[in-house]
Each structure stands twice: as structure tokens, then as C-alpha cells.
């Protein structure tokens, strides 16, 4: 076994026995799953199945009532959102959320620098000290490297033309593409995507799917929640199905799609 395949098969994200209770409601019920580097793990399930709550637990937004989340050998449970983020877990949201007032390029740059600085502000003095146009050669080098990196990310996402626009002027599809580009720009270890295809036109869907495949090729562990079941089954390497907070099936996409329990949960009509 080569080092590359060893890395590829390594388990990165491990969710063990996670339960989330809101008062009397059990949103997530004893769910375990794992995502490996260079793999797309599809998570499907009807509305209210607990998919988004599960993402909130993994990213540290929501502390679980029981269970643990770990990244490699490191426990994520109990850590603040910023700490989980700086360990390489990045996510997107059902509704794309933008940094209004920043340009598209700045949105990428701010994400990249936040990751590079590991949340330590103010960062290394040489990057900030002479901040205006009179900047030192070192400062200019850092600036242009960052700009090139941001522009490359935007080009890959197919939204290079929007680089200098303010984020509040973007159309919905462009917001989605920017949100995904922003998440990929920080070179995450684990990428949690919450319905990245919803509301997109066919060209944009193709662009997002290409980005997800590229992330997988780069060794990212992608966890994908998606209502478009056909697309999900086509991209995912493995699929986990949630229903009413419980895991009801897990396995290769085709096997899961044929599973009577899963078809029953979806009332059959979404799995064609």
C-alpha cells in the first residue's frame, strides 16, 4: 500500500453516538458516521431528519447532548466554532450567507487569512505594519500572492468576473458559487456542504459538482447533504440515510438507493 492510498483511506472525521435533544424533541438520535480523506460522504434524508443539526454539531455551533466528534486523534466536541474551524473543518449553509460590504475577492482573502493566521489577530507585523499603498516589498509580495490565490479560486469556481463586485450585488447562484469557493479557498480537511445545489441552474449545478469532485481529488473529506437525490447518488462514494434523527441505512449509493427501508422513508417517489 502506498502512502497516498494509506492517506486516502484514513478516517478523518469520526462522529460517534451523537444525540441532540431540544427539550423533548430528539433531533439527532445516536448517529455514528465517518468520513475519509478523498471521499464524498452523502447524507440524505427527508426534511427534519436531523441533517443540518448534525452539521451544527460537527462544526461546533451546537454541542451534542451525548456522543463525540473527532478529527483524526483530536476531539472536536466541546471546542468553540472558531477552534473547530481553525482545525480544518469548513462548512456552507442552506442559505448562502455573505459578508456584505466586502467585495467578492475580499471575501475569499478574509477567509484565507483567517485560516492562515489561525485566528490570531493582529497577525504577523510584517503583513500589517505598513498597510497602505506605500507598503514594503514584503507586504506587497504577501498581498499579490494572496490576490493571485483568491483570483485562482474564483476562476476555478467560474465567478472570476465578479471579483471586484460587492457581495450584496450577487445573484443567488453566484452567492452559492462564492460560498463554496470561499469554503474551498481555506483548503479544509473536512468540508460540510449543506444543500449546495438547491436553487441553481443546470450550468451552476455542473460547476458545483466539478468543484466537489476537485476537492475530493485534493484529499478533502466532503460530507454532502443534498435534496437532489439523483445528483447526490451520482457524486457520493458512500451514503448515509437519516430519518427522524436516526441512521436507517449506510453503504454504496446503488445499494442504499435499492434499500426498501430507504425507499419507504422517502415514500418511493424521490429515488427514480
Amino acid at each position, binding site marked *: 500500500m502506498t502512502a497516498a492510498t494509506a492517506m486516502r483511506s484514513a478516517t478523518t472525521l469520526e462522529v460517534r453516538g451523537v444525540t441532540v435533544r431540544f427539550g423533548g424533541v430528539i433531533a439527532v438520535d445516536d448517529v455514528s458516521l465517518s468520513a475519509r480523506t478523498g471521499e464524498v460522504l452523502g447524507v440524505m434524508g427527508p426534511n427534519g431528519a436531523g441533517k443540518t443539526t448534525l452539521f451544527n454539531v460537527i462544526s461546533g455551533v451546537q454541542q451534542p447532548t451525548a456522543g463525540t466528534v473527532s478529527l483524526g486523534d483530536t476531539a472536536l466536541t466541546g471546542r468553540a*466554532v472558531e477552534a473547530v*474551524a481553525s482545525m480544518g473543518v469548513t462548512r456552507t449553509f442552506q442559505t448562502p450567507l455573505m*459578508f456584505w460590504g*466586502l467585495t467578492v475577492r475580499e471575501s475569499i482573502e478574509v477567509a484565507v487569512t483567517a485560516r492562515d*493566521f489561525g485566528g490570531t*489577530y493582529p*497577525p504577523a507585523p510584517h503583513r500589517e505594519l505598513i498597510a497602505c499603498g506605500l507598503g514594503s516589498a514584503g507586504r506587497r509580495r504577501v498581498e499579490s500572492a494572496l490576490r493571485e490565490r483568491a483570483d485562482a479560486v474564483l476562476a476555478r469556481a467560474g465567478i472570476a468576473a465578479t471579483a471586484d463586485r460587492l457581495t450584496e450585488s450577487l445573484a443567488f447562484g453566484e452567492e452559492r458559487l462564492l460560498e463554496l469557493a*470561499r469554503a474551498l479557498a481555506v483548503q479544509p480537511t473536512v468540508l460540510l456542504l449543506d444543500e449546495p445545489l438547491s436553487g441553481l441552474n443546470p450550468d451552476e449545478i455542473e460547476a458545483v459538482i466539478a468543484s466537489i469532485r476537485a476537492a475530493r481529488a485534493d484529499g478533502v473529506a466532503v460530507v454532502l447533504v443534498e435534496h437532489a437525490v439523483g445528483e447526490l447518488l451520482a457524486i457520493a462514494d458512500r451514503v448515509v440515510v437519516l430519518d427522524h434523527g436516526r441512521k436507517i441505512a449506510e453503504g454504496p449509493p446503488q445499494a442504499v438507493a435499492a434499500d426498501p427501508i430507504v425507499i419507504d422513508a422517502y415514500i418511493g417517489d424521490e429515488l427514480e
Partner: protein
Amino acid sequence: MIESLWQYVLAGVVVGAIYALIAAGFVLIYQVTGLINFAQGEFAMIGAMTAASLATAGMPAPAAAGIAVVVAAATGALCYLLAIRPARAATGVTLIFITLGLDVALRGLGLFVWGTNPLSLNAFTGGAAIHVFSGVLPPQAMWVLLTDLLVFAALYVFFRHTYAGTAVRAAVANPPIASTFGIPLRTFAFWSFVVAAAIGGLGGVVIAPITSATYDMGLTFGLAGFVAAVLGGLESLPGALLGGFVLGIVTKVAGGVLSTGWEEGVGFLILVIVLVLRPQGLLGRAARRA
């Protein structure tokens, strides 16, 4: 009549510059934490009283001024760490009441340390009064305006040309998303108090030679700074600058033409008029929330 009116305008520009600095503190803290910090005026008092007492004790003016700003900044840091941060789970209204309590506490501390007698601070530079057309300004007015220029230029450079400043703007725009990228919101909240307090303290130091320093000066400056910040839109630093000058000029002219007792009343009247006609403030953006 015109001559004296012009003189009131000049006086308004000078106090307006200080209102703008206090307003900038309100805006910084409001933007980063969502809080209205009603203790903001006390940072100016602490700056002014510290500088005046140190200078009276014989310390050279620049050193006294520098120490005063550091003392004000440290006060801001302590306010955040001891009063705001432990209560961060509380609702906004509770936190605003905490800042009102801080305001009273700091004024009490000022009374305890420095007593009721006004302290004076010499102007930074001597020289003759400066004539501007038919009006005159004390030489210290140049230091006041220079301070405004430097502070607002520094804030502009920070927010527009540094990575940390861009990160603060991102955190202000969308705190939950910013934190999912590792942007440390609490660190920024801490620094917003430190910087707002330092700016307020600096304002107190530069105005003290003109107004003298008293333990209760923070009340007036705090209220004026708050009105100026709201005039400007509460979310906008250029708005704070504009709001400060508008408020300073309007109140001084009204005070001169009517009577000095009318200054504050007219200030609040302007606030009400602006909020009725333009609820988002002079330079604020209309509310846009998804």
C-alpha cells in the same frame, strides 16, 4: 451678528471634533459587539483627568498625554473583561444597563480619585490665537483637529487596508459565518473596547486645555457622542465624524444665538428631527436584513 455667528461655528467645529471621537468609540463597539456602551464619555474624562493631574504634578505634557491614553485604554479593557464578558450570555438590554452602571461607577471613581475641583491642562503649544476670517481659535484647536484627522485616517487605513481590518468588517457583516472561518469574535470585542476607550481618552486629553477637566465631564461628552453617533447612523465611522461636527456646530450656534442653556436641548431636537426624516441616520444604510 454675522461675525459672532461665525465665531460660534468655529467653537462648534472644535467641540464637534471631540464629539466625533467619542462617537467613533460608540460606533466601533456597536459594530463589533452590537452594544451601545454608555460609559463611552467616561473614557474621555479619565484621559483628561489623568493627563491634567500628571501634568499638574510636574510631568512633561507629552508623557502625561501618552500615559493618560494608556490609562483610558486599560480602563476600557477592564470594563470589557470584568463587566461585559462575564455577562455575554445576557440579553442586549441587560448589557446596555451594565454599561449605564459602568458609566456611573467610573464617574464615581473619578470623583473619588480627583475630587470635584476642575483641573487644568496647559495647551500643548503656546502662541497667538489663530484667526480664521473674522473668528479666532485657540492654538489648541489645531491639536484637536489634527487628532481627529489622524484618528480617522488610522481607522480608515485599518479597516480598508489591513487583513485584520477586513476580518473585522467580515465579523461585523456576519458573525456566525466569520466564526466558521476561525475569525475570533471575542478577541475583536475586547479590542473594540480598548480602541474605543483609547480614542475617547485621547479626545479628553486634547480638549482638556480648552474646557478644563472635571470628574463629571464624561456625562456631557458621552451624551453628545451618543447623539453624534446616532446622527451619523451608528454603523458608520464617516457618519460619526459628520454627526460630531453637525452636532457641535448646531449646538454652539444655538447656544450663542439663544442661550447656552439651550445647547443640549437643541442637540436632542436635531436628533429627533433626523431620526424622523431619516431613521438610518445621515450616512447609515437603510436596514437590510435577510
